[in-house]
């Protein structure tokens, strides 16, 4: 356990000391602030459907949300394995008495914690809004929960991509394209007419899930789905790390 904590802290330090994290963090906050303001403006429009809430827009309701999720994940994960392979520190790491599982988990946790903190910082917008108008915290909390769970999936995919190459840019591109394909699965719904297939697709649709979360509905099915995909990606990463090519 102390290994896992030490390794995860090393990951967070690597992010903390790198310019990428600051650039990503600053632009992320700038964009979220701008989007929050836009949503407020839209909601204040008297022609707006009054059943819509802030949370429904903010979590998964706009293009900007998905853009943030799908772009930050590759940026946070691209260096995890690639950089260590390129510089050769992976050799030093893997010849220390640490298990491959600990290494994979620490890479995942480091990037995921950064992602969670990034989104957690947007709570200030809601705190500011609270001073002006009352609203229900419930859907906001499930919105965050959904965002963090989706985060686990996208970060795990990013870590997997990074374990495949020693080039950070390649890792980021592979992760981004994979995430776009994964995300677009839900869009296939519009193309199929068979109810059975449609239901399956909706079960895989990230947009559909977030819509539920943002309404304050905590369904265990998407939660199970996210955890499964996350664990599958991390398992694959471990297998790659265990193969001769993955170790140098």
């Amino acid at each position, binding site marked *: 356990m102390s*290994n896992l904590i030490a390794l995860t802290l090393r990951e967070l330090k690597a992010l903390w000391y790198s310019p990428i994290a600051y650039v990503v963090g600053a632009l992320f906050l700038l964009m979220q602030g701008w989007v929050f303001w836009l949503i407020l403006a839209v909601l204040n429009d008297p022609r707006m459907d009054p059943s819509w809430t802030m949370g429904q827009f903010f979590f998964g309701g706009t293009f900007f949300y998905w853009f943030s999720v799908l772009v930050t994940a590759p940026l946070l994960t691209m260096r995890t394995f690639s950089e260590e392979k390129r510089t*050769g520190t992976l050799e030093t790491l893997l010849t220390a*008495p*640490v298990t491959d599982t600990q290494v994979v988990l620490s890479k995942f946790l480091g990037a995921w914690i950064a992602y969670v903190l990034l989104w957690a910082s947007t709570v200030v917008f809601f705190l500011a809004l609270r001073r002006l108008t009352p609203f229900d915290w419930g859907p906001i909390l499930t919105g965050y929960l959904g965002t963090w769970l989706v985060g686990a999936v996208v970060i795990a995919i990013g870590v997997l991509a990074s374990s495949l190459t020693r080039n950070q840019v390649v890792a980021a591109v592979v992760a981004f394209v994979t995430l776009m394909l994964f995300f677009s699965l839900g869009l296939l719904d519009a193309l199929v007419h068979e109810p059975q297939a449609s239901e399956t697709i909706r079960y895989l649709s990230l947009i559909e899930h977030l819509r539920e979360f943002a309404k304050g509905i905590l369904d265990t099915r998407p939660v199970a789905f996210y955890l499964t995909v996350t664990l599958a990606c991390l398992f694959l990463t471990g297998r790659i790390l265990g193969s001769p090519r993955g170790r140098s």
Partner: protein
Amino acid sequence: MFETAPMTPAIEIHGLTKRYEQLTALANISFDVAPGEIMGFLGPNGAGKTTALRILTGLLAPTAGSVRVDGLDVASASLQVRRRIGYLPEQVALYPELRVQEYLAYRAIIKGLAPKARRGRIQAVLEQCALTDVPRRLIGQLSKGYRQRVGLADCLLAEPKILILDEPTVGLDPHQIRQTRELIVALGRRSTILLSTHILPEVEMACQRVTIIHQGRIVAVDSPHRLRQRLAGARIIRVQLRADPAAAEAALKHLKGVARVSLQGHVDGGAAFEIEAAGDTDLREDIFRLAVEQRWILRELSQVQASLEDVFIHLTTTEDGGAT
């Protein structure tokens, strides 16, 4: 599990083979390193040294053969083996964003040092590796020599029984090379060391035995001294005389125990020869007596010692690589 009897070799390599798709990096390598021994591991670039060390540290899996460290199988007891080994890779790769002390503290945790022991061990290795003036410096800003020593400090952190050093002095300045060698010799008093290098004076200075590999095969395992002797099995004597070259050559050839005489050149009124002895006999006194008899004036009479470099070149340039 076979437990560590007193005479268990520190490192036991048996029939080790590593094949890549087309290339055989290691072909049936076997050798032992006794506890407390400093074993030199020599070979030209690309001979398979680094591959062998990576298998030894559990980083790579062998195609065939077994490797035991301190009686433990590297494949099945990888973690225990890694706890016993301090490995300094060829390319010492460190995290540039960490400070020296911070890095060592991190390594101390993942190497499983007890919390109470950490501070003391870090201080000890900083002193051992002459890093006491830079504990707060960022690793990324350190010179190559310092970074090499940070790598070595990390390697010593958990007081491993076995040190595996892959070219520890590459890229250091002469002063640092000397310090590092002295440190290796000092460390050799307490631990077993497998020292991979192609710098021969290093081997001569530190190692009790040497394993030479070439094209993935072992070509020699012996002490540096015996290796030199083996090549110099035919001893070479250099003679310079003032005499008629042709007559001198003929007379020398008739001397008992001489295998070959070669005229090296004429030097003002005399000649220089290289004489190869047939067996392990010292011909110098015979040659001296002959010179007195023949009234030659002797200018030089010396026995040439083959250097370890000669041995190395001899063993690793033959086409089949097979002088054994």
